[in-house]
């Protein structure tokens, strides 16, 4: 499938979203990402049983932290889809890009991503 997704998205592949620790999510923002979303398998379909459920809890925890420190919690999100749903993947990518565009750039300075353009990071276990 050769579907196009927005160029501002940088994909970080992980073996399972259960590998996504809180600190990874915070670090992506520290290095200047404007938004981050985690794409895991459908709930109930995790090869490691609960990886995607744990990832969701961590995403929620980052949302809480953001609310406390006054950053928009909408900058981070968790999505679930199956590996065969390429079209849905593109839809999510577009939805997230649109959301971040509306929120505007993150107030955190861009450090290591070498560009001032909008950057959304997708942490993905569906390859």
């Amino acid at each position, binding site marked *: 499938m050769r579907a196009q997704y927005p160029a501002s998205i940088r994909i970080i592949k992980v073996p399972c979203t259960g590998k996504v620790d809180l600190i990874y999510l915070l670090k992506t*923002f520290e290095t200047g990402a404007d938004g981050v979303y985690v794409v895991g398998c459908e709930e109930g379909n995790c090869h490691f049983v609960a990886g995607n459920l744990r990832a969701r809890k961590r995403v929620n925890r980052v949302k809480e932290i953001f609310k406390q420190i006054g950053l928009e919690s909408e900058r981070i999100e968790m999505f679930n889809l199956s590996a065969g749903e390429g079209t849905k993947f593109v839809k999510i990518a577009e939805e997230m890009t649109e959301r971040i565009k509306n929120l505007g750039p993150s107030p955190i300075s861009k450090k290591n991503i070498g560009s001032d353009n909008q950057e959304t990071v997708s942490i993905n276990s569906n390859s």
Partner: protein
Amino acid sequence: MIIGEGKPINEILEMILKHKKIIVAGCRGCVTVCSAGGQKEVEILSSTIRLAREKDKAPIEIFETTLERQCDTEYLEQMRNYIDEYEAVLSLACGAGVQFLAEMYKKIPLYPAINTNFIGVTEKQGIWSERCQSCGNCMLERTGGICPITRCSKSLLNGPCGGSSDGKCEIDSEIDCAWQIIYERLMELDLMERFEEVEDIKDWSTSRDGGPRRIEREDLKL
């Protein structure tokens, strides 16, 4: 182990508001096990502080470290060669660790990043509960291994009180009545005659009533 819990981030940000260069110091002891102040929490807290301060256009430099223990001078000593380069230390150790750090480094402001709550156990991943109030005179041999001082909301020595209902405590229906558990356990152990003995008034001088406590062991002193 000692169970603690991170302070609200805004409280922490307020404490360190005027500082631009700090050490965030964790402890690999109890607070690592209860996920309140180990290396991972140091990383998460430091990252959160940096994000909050960047957002407020008041960036902060943080040196992250996690000592083996903060309640032992030999590990605290490891900070000696760099501590002077920083304006303050934010410690994720228990209250004992923070105080010992303060005793050792008198010229640097110290801030606690966690609240020290109790001596307890990990019931399950993510759930901790209190088991001991360190009264200094253990009586568990008489209560089937269940501490009435800690687990009975009124610390009754001869329970239960009239508020025990359906195995729950009148203080909170989520809390098991300690004396109900003691009763069941003694029954299982066939030690029900224990209930015929009246527990004397406790000598609290081994507890907080005797002032700050101290243990000295001649055989161990160097």
